[in-house]
């Protein structure tokens, strides 16, 4: 097995077309050994397509996938030694839980005494030991997905692929399961590609996230980088809540239609400023006037851990949200107030979506 330097999974300029539609448009990506890499993007952006190309169910029209230094093009899925977890679980309904988990081990011709041991171990790890002889129709969704996990991990795959494994579960179970998956993945050190359209899930469990849109990868980075330093307007918009202000750059300054100004050395052009909802706060005396804007409070939503204000900029009626600590000062609907932000927290994007500042 390759334990040397260099990425464990290496995806190089992969292209996939369905007829005239390009589902993947030159995707390049790497994952190092033991890393959990998440593919995050809206539905239809090509995540599943990329995952199925890695798994070998689809052939790329161009480009290469290699794993542990071995090119995978032309290798059938059953010879790739990958573990895969499916959105709808894909548990074999006619086999018991233990038979499901043993399925891949049997395919490898492993001695039955070892199969028994490894199956028991895998089931214990997903806390299903007492369900070994049950049939899948007697399991809940969460239990089924644990069987799916055990079945994929027990073969000690070179790479673990998960395609929206939690999206059929209810919200509370999703949070619980994603922690389990993450802990297990770390413990076993399995390189993992995890597909989701849920940004919170991606932020919570990933070593790195690749944000996809329309068959392209826009940014790859740690959850923190993705959230705080989006390199593309789409990334900023897709992850977390963002206020968008239209403006123009001229004379080294970005002027927003909503009022505020900030220094910007880019060439004159129209631009958009992104500001996280939690980065807007009530103005203090000390705030410089160019980072302040007046807005009318249209609606106040109390969310428990914070209060969300739905605002309208007085100057140009831009729709704005502000997330404030719920123990802070009270805002009445219909009143007008002054809000401020720290220019360091603002991100500026050109009209084509690339980052200016």
């Amino acid at each position, binding site marked *: *097995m390759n334990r040397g330097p260099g990425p464990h999974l290496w995806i190089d300029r992969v292209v996939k077309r369905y007829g005239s539609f390009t589902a993947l448009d030159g995707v390049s990506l790497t994952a190092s050994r033991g890393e959990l890499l998440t593919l995050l993007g809206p539905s239809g952006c090509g995540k599943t397509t990329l995952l199925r190309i890695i*798994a*070998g*169910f689809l052939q790329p029209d161009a480009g290469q996938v290699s794993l542990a230094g071995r090119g995978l093009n032309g*290798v*059938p*899925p*059953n*010879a*790739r*030694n*990958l*573990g*895969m977890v*499916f*959105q*709808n679980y*894909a548990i*074999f*309904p*006619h*086999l*018991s839980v*233990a*038979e499901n988990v*043993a*399925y*891949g081990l049997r*395919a*490898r*011709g*492993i001695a*039955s005494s070892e*199969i*028994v041991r490894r199956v028991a171990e895998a089931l214990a790890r997903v806390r299903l030991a007492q369900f070994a*002889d049950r*049939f899948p129709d007697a399991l809940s969704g969460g239990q089924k997905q644990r069987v*799916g996990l055990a*079945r*994929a991990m027990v*073969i*000690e*795959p*070179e790479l673990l*692929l998960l395609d929206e494994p939690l999206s059929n579960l209810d919200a509370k179970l999703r949070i619980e399961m994603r922690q389990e998956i993450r802990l297990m993945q770390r413990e*076993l*050190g*399995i390189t993992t590609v995890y597909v989701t359209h849920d940004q919170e899930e991606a932020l919570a469990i990933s070593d790195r996230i690749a944000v996809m849109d329309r068959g392209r990868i826009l940014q790859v980075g740690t959850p923190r980088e993705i959230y705080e330093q989006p390199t593309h307007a789409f990334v900023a918009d897709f992850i977390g809540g963002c206020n968008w202000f239209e403006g123009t750059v001229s004379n080294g300054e970005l002027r927003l239609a909503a009022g505020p100004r900030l220094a910007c050395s880019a060439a004159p052009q129209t631009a958009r400023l992104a500001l996280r909802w939690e980065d807007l706060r009530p103005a203090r005396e000390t705030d410089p006037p160019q980072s302040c804007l007046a807005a009318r409070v249209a609606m106040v939503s109390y969310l428990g851990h914070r209060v969300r204000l739905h605002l309208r900029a007085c100057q140009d009626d831009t729709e704005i949200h502000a997330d404030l600590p719920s123990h802070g000062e009270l805002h009445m609907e219909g009143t007008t107030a002054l809000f401020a932000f720290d220019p360091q927290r603002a991100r500026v994007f050109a009209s084509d979506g690339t980052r200016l500042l």
Partner: protein
Amino acid sequence: MRRAPALPPGGVLARLDPWPLLGAAALLVVLVFVAWPLSELALESFIGQESQHFGFENYATFFASSYFRRALFNSLTIGALGTIIALCIGVPLAFAYARYDFPGRDTIEVAILLSMLSPPFIGAYAWIMMFGRSGWVSEFARDLGIELPPIYGAFGISIACAFGLYPLAFLVVRSGLARVNRSLEEAAYSLGRGRLGVMFTITLPLVLPALLTAALLVFLGVVSDFGTPGILGEGERFPVLATLAYSLYLSEIGAEPGMAATTCMILLAITFVLVLGVRFLSGRRSVASDTASDLTLRPLSGGKRWAMTSGVALLVLTANVPTIVVVVSSFLEVRGAVFQPVFTLANYRNAMVAMGNALWNSLMLATIALALIIAVGGSAGYYISRRSGLLPRALDLLIMVPFVVPGTVIGIGYATVFNEPPLLLTGTYAIIAIVYVIRRLPYMTRSCAAIVFQIDRALEDASLSLGRPPLAGFRRIVLPLMRPGMVAGAAIAWVEVFSELSASIVLYTGPTRTLPIAAYQQAATGDFGMAAAYSTLLVGIAAIGLFIFLFAARGRRDRVVGWI
């Protein structure tokens, strides 16, 4: 990781995807055994019987002859009448079963399926025994001074066919009703419609495609039936296209194969026009609801429950009367054409003596054919439903053709094409086994395709990703999941193959005579005692096979769970 994982063996077998190859082989088989005979027949129909010139001579002869025209008219008449009668029985039953809970449901359902067991021609001659010139009902009525209308001709044939085919209408309409989302009906009630209003404005329009399909299948069944008009039409007196084609082809005095081919083509034209017509009509009214509909049954209050049970039971019992009559009379003494109320096994003794190897032939041919139907239908169904492209679509189309082609037509086609090299098959057991397979393959293939369609594709992906080659995944995952559905399909195929008459009667020779042929011949020549014995054997063995299959389908899941 603790150790290097064992990679699955990566040999040629692990990589081989055998399906396109199997698909191509299947396509070759249907090209030879479906496309070739039918195109040969089509060609022959244009070669003048007299002049040997290419053209419409035979068609002109056909439509110029009042006898031929009568056969066409008769076919259409019995088709229409038989369809109406079968729907009158099958549709109310379907509504009762799809909507209401009543005592005895399951038992009566078995009885409905039992009426599929006996081929219509057996019913046909039960009608003669009851209502024929010297039938006991006719005699009884005559004693009371009433002369009953003759059972021979259009009405008798339609009734006999309908009594054999109504279960088909029942099954199709019931599954159509099951797909109608109940909440649509509830919405209509809530908007103030009464029960009848809902029935006519919501339910009926929604099941119209199923009704049309049911009507089509019954109509095709009636016009393709060879045995019933053969017995109840008294040969030349009431010709229909199926019997006409047969006698034109096999007439001892001057066979006219060209005219036979033309008759076949006219019969085929009727079926294809109807198939296309129904497709067009139901395609435009596609109302498939993809949400799972509520299948709970409406409970009925005390009196109504029993009324429902008796109504349903009476319908089914009536439809089963012919079979019961045949079975009972097979144990009665016959004098001339009249059964005496004396118990005897003489009919069976005589039948055994005259049987030759008909029973053995039927058992052997039907078993071989069934094995092939299961193997080919299962894999073709899988291939058609899982793969896209030209090859699977062509295979799907060609396999389905015999579904609507009357058996007589296929039989004549085979006899025309396979009576000379390169494929000299006439007179062999093989040709009968093949015609059995080809005629019943469509049903098996379609039902397997439907089953596979419901099996989550991700299961196969999971199997692949876990290291099993495609064929191993098919065997270990798909096949076990298909099996319960396949067994039901196989049970029906067994019954139909075992009682196949209309193609094999064209193709058999002395040594390859089968049980249905023997039963038909005895009934047609008027030896009622032996015919009853043969028919009872036929129905009995078909039933035994059916029950073996149904038992195999049940109780699979309750095996002991030892997984190592």
